[in-house]
């Protein structure tokens, strides 16, 4: 790996930039690896990176059925925050938010993490009570979150309409200043480049079609479009397709996969300084560094793997955006798309061991796993390396759906996150 630095940039400028090596050269799979990660999103590539960088396990392959970052890792609206209600969640998400700090330096790749603040709007009494409860709980867990009056919301985000007779009146908001955004693609590319530099193979355009198990039940490896590849341990990080992959190992999961849509406007000059979320009306908005308004919707209602959703969902979201920010009513939308998100009954992820020896899972991040990318990757790597979960992810086990020890962020937020 050739490091990005001022000096190397100048040297390469003299050389017509011909000396930069490929980030992840095309590789044919080896017959076997110590660890195989299924899924080349941010979580899977990050796990491979940390296996090599932190735990010295470098005989690792990431197997991706399409191209890396072609899944939700490259389709999300990049909102980062950690102001979740329950202790377990606060620790899990804040572990990730702490890792975003310094990630560009660690990877020698600019992931453009921007702490521009995430403001969640309260539109009714229920929102006010629930947000204030979150703020208190967050503070007890050392997670920053503060209450803003409508006027303070307007000062923080000038395009906001706070007039009392608005369709969705702003009664206040919860602001996490450490929240913000990052550039999703560079997170994936940075982890991929860092992992490859440490010996990891990235195998693209190669769907896993089966998981082979020995007579004792433990994993032996995976069948793929490029043949059988042996592995002592397998980490599944396949987001929306987790149920499909787990079925290959004979496991049925508490997951349902739904389309989640997003869209961007034509690029304009900087006008929107932060991230605003309105859970009640299902609309999220920020402005990318390219100038596009990035807008996210709620999930479609039915199970689907189509990576597209219905137009009426987007219409609903845009109607809400136009009510809250009347200044944007004449903005033109450029592109819209969908990703498939894997949702658990309690809207918290599953990160840990499975009933199959040597098989580990990281899934159920649903509509909100981009923010967790460094943390989930780190904890999946830890769990695989130690054959046991870290204290931070121990509660996010598969058993909780049998024992009833939910981490019920669904009930806490009453909406998607």
């Amino acid at each position, binding site marked *: 790996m050739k490091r990005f630095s001022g000096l190397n940039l100048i040297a390469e400028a003299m050389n017509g930039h011909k000396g930069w090596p490929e980030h992840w050269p095309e590789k044919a799979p080896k017959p076997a690896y110590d660890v195989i990660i299924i899924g080349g999103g941010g979580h899977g590539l990050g796990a491979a990176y940390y296996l090599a960088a932190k735990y010295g396990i470098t005989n690792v392959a990431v197997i991706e059925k399409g191209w890396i970052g072609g899944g939700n890792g490259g389709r999300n609206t990049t909102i980062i925050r950690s102001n979740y209600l329950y202790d377990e969640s606060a620790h899990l998400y804040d572990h990730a938010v702490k890792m975003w700090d310094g990630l560009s330096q660690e990877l020698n790749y600019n992931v453009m993490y921007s702490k521009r603040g995430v403001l969640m709007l309260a539109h009714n009494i229920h929102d006010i009570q629930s947000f204030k409860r979150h703020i208190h709980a967050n503070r007890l867990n050392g997670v920053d979150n503060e209450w803003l009056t409508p006027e303070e919301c307007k000062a923080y985000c000038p395009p906001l309409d706070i007039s009392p007779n608005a369709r969705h009146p702003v009664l206040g908001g919860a602001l996490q200043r450490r929240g913000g955004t990052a550039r999703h693609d560079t997170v994936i590319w940075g982890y991929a480049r860092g992992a490859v530099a440490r010996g990891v193979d990235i195998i693209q355009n190669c769907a896993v079609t089966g998981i082979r198990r020995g007579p004792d039940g433990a994993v032996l490896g995976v069948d793929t479009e490029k043949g059988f590849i042996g592995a002592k341990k397998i980490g599944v990080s396949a987001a929306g*397709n987790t*149920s*499909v992959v787990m079925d290959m190992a004979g496991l*049925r*999961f*508490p*997951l*349902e*996969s739904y389309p989640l849509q997003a869209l961007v406007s034509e690029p304009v000059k900087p006008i929107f300084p932060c991230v605003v979320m309105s859970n009640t009306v299902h609309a999220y908005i920020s402005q990318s560094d390219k100038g596009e308004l990035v807008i996210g919707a709620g999930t479609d*209602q*039915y*199970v*689907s*793997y*189509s990576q*597209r959703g*219905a*137009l*009426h969902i987007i219409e609903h979201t845009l109607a809400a955006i136009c009510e809250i920010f009347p200044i944007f009513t004449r903005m033109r939308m450029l592109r819209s798309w969908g990703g498939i998100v894997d949702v658990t*009954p309690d809207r918290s992820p599953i990160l840990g061991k499975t009933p199959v020896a040597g098989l580990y899972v990281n899934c159920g991040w649903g509509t909100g796993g981009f923010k967790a990318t460094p943390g989930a990757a780190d904890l999946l790597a830890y769990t695989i390396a130690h054959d046991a979960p870290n204290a931070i992810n121990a509660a996010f086990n598969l058993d909780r*759906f*049998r*024992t*009833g020890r939910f981490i019920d962020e669904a009930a806490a937020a009453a909406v998607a996150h």
Partner: protein
Amino acid sequence: MILIHCPYCEEDRPEVEFTYGGEAHIARPLDPSALTDSEWEGYLYIRSNTRGLHAERWRHAHGCARFFNAVRDTVSDRFEVTYKTGEARPAKITQTGGAA
């Protein structure tokens, strides 16, 4: 927008008239107190989440308001067939593109 055929109204109506009711043919336990924790987990939370032909419940909320079942291809979102509550899943619907 997807058009859905309500087997009661016998009409193709737009998706916004309907609400989704999750996976179909999950029978409520007859003797709940006899169930183990694992059986409760299976009934309440474990789902097929099929990539392909999926049997599911829909409700014609802004129409006749009745629940019915459908088989839909979750890759293309194409409805293969809809049928009344209480009827068995049509046997002929076994592979993508098959029709009733």
